[in-house]
């Protein structure tokens, strides 16, 4: 474990150096992601200029959900972005073989191969949005609240990771599962609004099948009194651990299938 942490640090150092080399890329990437996020928030703002609340949720509450989603997603975006590339950059050109003849865990190697600069834009926006929303909520922010918020955000990030890992793994059978990964990932946009505004079917789908509900709405609902989801919200870290475990088991199955069929 210590060895992997050290290795990750070394990989990161190299990735950061490369990032600095392409300075323009870094700035453009961060800015474009920030712009994209900002557009989403702007839209919510326009809607709330005309209504006071959405199914009982105020503007700042929605902003808070948004902020958790953005920061959680940034963990996935910065550190696990390589999951998108499994099919077209590794399996199709045969680069994945390289990872299999190294004496370290291939998933670790695959993830550590890349650090995504654009994710920092997501992180900045997320923190700004959270900072804006938090003082307007009816909560007294003590030490414990901050700790829980951070745990929730990390759990949210790992749920994004688990879902992407699960569907990226399909690439082992079908060469490139990117379209599937992309479609599923887009479902997470639903989770940036209160799940209560949706039909029951969608709510169950986003809670128990593709647990994107735990990436933003439930963690936010934990802090908002009277939301009725405080207990379910406590399951957020559990949901993260369970989905990561399932995704990893599935990855191992995929790897096994890959090594018995080849590409």
């Amino acid at each position, binding site marked *: 474990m210590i060895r992997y942490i050290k290795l990750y640090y070394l990989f990161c150092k*190299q990735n950061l150096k490369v990032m600095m080399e392409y300075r323009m890329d870094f700035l453009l990437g961060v800015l474009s992601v920030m712009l994209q996020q900002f557009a989403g928030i702007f839209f919510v703002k326009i809607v709330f200029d005309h209504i006071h609340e959405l199914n009982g949720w105020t503007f700042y509450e929605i902003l808070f959900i948004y902020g958790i989603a953005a920061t959680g997603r940034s963990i996935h975006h910065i550190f696990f972005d390589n999951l998108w590339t499994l099919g077209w950059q590794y399996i199709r050109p045969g680069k994945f*073989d390289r990872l299999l003849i190294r004496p370290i865990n291939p998933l670790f190697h695959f993830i550590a191969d890349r650090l995504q600069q654009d994710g920092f834009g997501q992180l900045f926006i997320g923190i700004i949005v959270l900072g804006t929303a938090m003082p307007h909520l009816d909560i007294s922010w003590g030490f414990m609240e901050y700790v829980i918020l951070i745990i929730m955000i990390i759990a949210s990030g790992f749920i994004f990771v688990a879902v992407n890992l699960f569907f990226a793994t399909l690439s082992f059978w079908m060469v490139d599962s990117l379209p599937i990964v992309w479609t599923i990932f887009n479902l997470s946009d639903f989770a940036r609004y209160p799940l209560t505004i949706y039909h029951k079917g969608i709510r169950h789908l986003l809670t128990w099948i593709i647990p994107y509900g735990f990436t933003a709405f439930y963690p936010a609902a934990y802090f908002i009194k009277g939301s009725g989801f405080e207990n379910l919200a406590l399951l957020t870290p559990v949901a993260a651990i369970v989905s990561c475990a399932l995704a990893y088991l599935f990855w191992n199955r995929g790897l096994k299938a890959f090594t018995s069929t080849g590409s």
Partner: protein
Amino acid sequence: MIEVHNLAKHYKIAKRDPGLRGAVKSLFYRKYETKEAVKGINLHIEASEMVGYIGANGAGKSTTIKMLTGILTPTSGEVKVNGIVPYENRKQNASHIGAVFGQRTQLFWDIPVRESYELLKHIYEIPQKQYEETLAEFVEVLHLEPLLGIPVRQLSLGQKMRCELAAAFLHRPKVVYLDEPTIGLDVAVKVRIRSFIKQMNARYGTTVLLTTHDMQDIEEICQRIIIIDDGSVIYDGSIQNIKSQFGDKRVIHFELENSDNFILPQELAHAAQVLPREEEDLHKISITFSSRDISGAELISIMMNHYTVADLTIADPKIETIVEEIYGRGMKKEVQHEEVH
């Protein structure tokens, strides 16, 4: 060092009718066909042997190497490399092996060569002192000094291959698999790479399994060759033996002014054969002969007496020709008995 027993690998491939219609049809209904890439081969390679593993494209070379490195799980049979079953203990096996896969880089694309080696040092847990010694040695033999600060993506093919080789040997592996390490390189680089491989073998007793289409590589590096064709081993023995029997094979390509009604001149009928013409190059006549029956110069002069020759090229004996030849002469069984261990 490498023990392979009855190793087989079968692939299931989807059969598809031609054209767009076939593609659409295959979306809904697929017929599968089993392809036997490797059909029950046996190999026994001692520590510090250098073996040429050759065969035509699609003969099963890469599939075998993938199974030896642990990338592929065999359909049946046993593999043991250094006492380890590679596909069961992939990571453990990986720390004892090195590999160069032709055009695919093992290095890190965007970072300078030196930093790539640093990362490999940590990945393979090479002790600092040993790492420094090894690297210093490699830098000298392969002339890497000017390349160390350059990102891999900016290197030329020859430079990259030299760096690639150093990376494969950096952790002093017991076995190294080299898949086409000299493909597309100029002569000077080839010579340097060959001498590096020999030096590593002499110094550290590294076992080397080399696949190549370049007969020169084989002749200079290997004492023994294994020829695989259509998934089966058709020859396993010394290089001298195969050379004395088949190495005299030559091919000369003639470009004639008028080749429409070409027939082999009478004088050559007993000593040479015309190879089937390639479709895209119908005016080119390829003649194969054995240097024991007739010299190249003699053959050319006879040809020139009969036809107006616009151009000619003398080709090196290709491994494909030798493989064909082994089948053609029905030597398959005979030569197989002369295995060296």
